[in-house]
């Protein structure tokens, strides 16, 4: 009896990205990065797939003359803002908050291109080991402390201090498995007052990505280490300051005086934690939220009928796939792995899982990640799949386990894979586990692992973060996430060469080669990259999605 009211659901509040297609005669085209138009003719009860116009809008508000109740932008997010310390935070929502408070030397824009931030220019030396940044003049922290080269050096010293034990230390020094340390950056020094240089031990192409995540803290605060409570007050040089951090509920920021750049128009930004998708939409309708992310994909109709809400869909850096353990006898045959890829109807996957708001995987990298090289997709072809299975001696299929997280969305994806593979007689046993349990299972080393197939997703903003972490031959668990246990010397060689390349073009050439090798060998079932879906009130202008999260820095509110 007592349990009736305890209708517990741990992941009940997972983004309800559901399909809205019904009675659709044709396989819907699964959007390219920019635009798709679906004509859904035929069936009377067909509802729409998510389609975007050329600017990425799914719905454009008809009423645009509404007024905001106050000069405050309320951003309703699904998950928690776990951390307010810029040196340790890692979850996407905290990173989003940091974006408004702290400056980094460089930052990414919505096209995944690097932009100047606190540094207005930079150079990389010939040997790709020295990165020099020229800091803008006139940047100050709230208490007037100048943002100069010495300040970056102080931040570096605090970051690597083992006593602080901050996560940002990994940017410079990694602790290896035998407890020895590998130094990546052996020196950070002031070249002159406003020029700072990072010296790398050996070339490491994802380094700029790390720099983009290195928030610079007021040096008088950062030296206090863990004695300073960042949840009580921020210490940045960005346009906003932290006013209130209520864990599990909301985080409020307000504009501060003396920001070096163009002053944002919005005075207050409040992040609210709203786990339930339906509630986020309700808040947007009533104006209790100004921006909502993520927006559930089945709410397009509600949003359209509200009339004063814009909804956008932009490509993401999330890749969804299933790893195929090459040590499993049946999966060790490349023909079987290819057959499995041919047996998956990717268009149906995108429709069922994301209402069309996704892009078919055409490489191991999502299209917007720099270095992406398009491969020839494994077009859904059951005949071909069956004949490959027969060739490999598996015409009658085999039994196999598929693990994944136990959220409704992940379970749905696994069920889809099961349904598809049943077409070529593969009997998939779907086993959803709690995420923390999965983390444990998938960290088992090669000789003791029980993982056969793993339905999972990955997001990174650089190619190395995909290729090396997921497919490199030494990235096997527990070190990396190569649960395909796929080992290919040619692939490794290309990734290493790309890593050490001095120019972007040369690097991309190697990465393209690596992608082609992986694509041919099918260590995964390649599925799709789903879009970011966000919506906002029409009295707010110009909301962008950047790798750091929601960007309203250049938006205006019609008050």
């Amino acid at each position, binding site marked *: 009896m007592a349990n009736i009211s305890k209708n517990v659901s741990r992941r*009940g509040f997972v983004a309800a990205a559901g399909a809205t297609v019904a009675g659709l005669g044709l396989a819907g085209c699964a959007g390219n990065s920019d635009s798709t138009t679906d004509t859904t003719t035929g069936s009377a009860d067909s509802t729409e797939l998510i389609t975007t116009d050329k600017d990425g809008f799914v719905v454009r508000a008809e009423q645009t003359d509404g007024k905001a109740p106050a000069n405050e932008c309320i951003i309703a997010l699904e998950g928690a803002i776990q951390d307010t310390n810029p040196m340790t935070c890692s979850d996407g929502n905290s990173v989003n908050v940091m974006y408004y408070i702290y400056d980094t030397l460089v930052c990414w824009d919505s096209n995944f291109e690097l932009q100047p931030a606190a540094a207005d220019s930079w150079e990389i030396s010939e040997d790709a080991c020295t990165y020099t940044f020229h800091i803008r003049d006139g940047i100050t922290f709230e208490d007037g402390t100048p943002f100069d080269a010495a300040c970056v050096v102080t931040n570096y010293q605090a970051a690597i201090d083992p006593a602080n034990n901050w996560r940002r230390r990994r940017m410079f020094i990694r602790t290896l498995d035998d407890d020895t340390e590998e130094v990546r950056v052996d020196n950070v020094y002031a070249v002159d007052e406003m020029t700072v240089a990072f010296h790398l031990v050996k070339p490491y192409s994802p380094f700029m990505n790390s720099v983009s995540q290195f928030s610079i803290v007021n040096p008088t605060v950062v030296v206090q280490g863990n004695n300073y409570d960042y949840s009580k007050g921020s210490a940045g040089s960005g346009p906003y300051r932290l006013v209130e951090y209520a864990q*599990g509920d909301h985080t409020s920021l307000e504009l501060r005086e003396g920001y070096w750049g163009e002053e944002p128009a919005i005075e207050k930004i409040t992040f609210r934690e709203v786990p339930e998708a339906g*509630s986020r939409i309700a808040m947007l309708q009533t104006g209790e939220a100004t921006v909502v992310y993520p927006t559930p994909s089945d709410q397009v109709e509600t949003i359209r009928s509200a009339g004063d809400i814009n909804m956008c869909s932009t490509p993401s850096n999330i890749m969804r796939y299933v790893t195929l353990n090459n040590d499993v006898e049946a999966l060790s045959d490349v023909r079987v792995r290819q057959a499995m890829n041919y047996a998956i109807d990717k268009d149906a996957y995108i429709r069922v899982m994301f209402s069309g708001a996704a892009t078919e995987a055409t490489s191991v990298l999502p299209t917007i990640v720099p270095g992406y090289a398009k491969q020839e997709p494994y077009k859904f072809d059951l005949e071909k799949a069956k004949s490959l299975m027969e060739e490999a001696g598996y015409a009658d299929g085999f039994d196999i386990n598929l693990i994944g997280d136990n959220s409704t969305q992940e379970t749905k994806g696994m069920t889809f894979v099961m349904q598809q593979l049943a077409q070529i007689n593969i009997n998939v046993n779907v086993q959803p586990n709690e995420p923390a349990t999965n983390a444990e299972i998938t960290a088992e080393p090669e000789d003791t692992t029980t993982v056969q197939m793993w339905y999972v997703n990955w997001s990174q903003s650089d190619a190395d973060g995909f290729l090396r972490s997921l497919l490199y031959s030494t990235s096997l668990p527990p070190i990396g996430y190569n649960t395909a246990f796929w080992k290919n010397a040619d692939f490794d060689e290309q990734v290493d060469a790309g890593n050490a390349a001095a120019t972007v073009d040369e690097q991309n050439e190697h990465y393209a080669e690596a992608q082609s090798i992986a694509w041919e060998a099918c260590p995964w079932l390649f599925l799709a990259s789903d879009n970011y879906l966000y919506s906002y009130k029409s009295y707010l202008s110009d909301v962008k999605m950047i790798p750091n999260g929601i960007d309203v820095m250049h938006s205006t509110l019609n008050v």
Partner: protein
Amino acid sequence: MGKYIVKRVLSMIPLLFVVSVIVFMFIHLIPGDPARQIAGVDATIGEIDNIRRQLGLDRPLVEQYVTWITGIFHGDFGISYSNNMTVAELLIPRFPITIYLTICSITWSALIGIAIGVIASINRGKTLDLVGMVIAIAGISLPNFWLGLQLMQIFAVDLRLLPTGGVNTWQGYILPSVSMGAGIMAILARVTRSSMIENLNKDYIRTARAKGLPEPRVIMRHAFKNSAIDIITVTALQIGALIAGSVVVESVFSIPGMGRLLVDSIGFRDYEVVQALILFFSVEYMVINLLADVLYGIINPRVRYE
């Protein structure tokens, strides 16, 4: 009775000790590693080991338990692994929210549930009884996410009378307490009805009626008073469940309550938060049940404490 209460309170101490051991073992032995959760996906084993050492998770379980329990005696409930706050900092702001929500939910659901139960029992077998039953069963069967979202649509989105979520104003408590209380209202209506029917057929009620006492007095003073034990038992159980929180209602109305915190903490393997929460829930259950037992005695002096 004073002696009884003292005895009960004292008996809580060994019990809490048992609870602390069980919860500690449970959370530490289920698969999943907080160090891995903290370290994140890009961590090396060395980095994970560092964190494990720093948190003392590499030490023998017994030693970890002793460290934790000693901390509690000094008022230190540990830290949250997921956000570097102390457990106290994390729990204290949630406590009043949970208490208000519990009080609001239980008040309305008890009043209405008991009223439905009494009315149904008096009109036993008539239409009113059946209507009461259907309302009660609907209250239990309605998924509370559905009820919550419908209420939100009507009162927040369409009528704009109440906020969609959050508990920054008193209005914010209305919809969540209605959603949380629906099931309890139903349960109390059923229990009240059945207990009242039983008591209304007892000899003393016939005697009272035969004496010519007015019917309302018979019902309220005699029958209802005797049904109170059942009602209190069930109410106590439900209050306990309410304080442990409803993850669904808390999620629907974006309330930073205990239920969501527990579920998130278990998911993160945030050991010390989970341990503190379970200890807190245990104390709270024990106190409420003690109160219920004491109330039994006040209402029906024939109940003897042994």
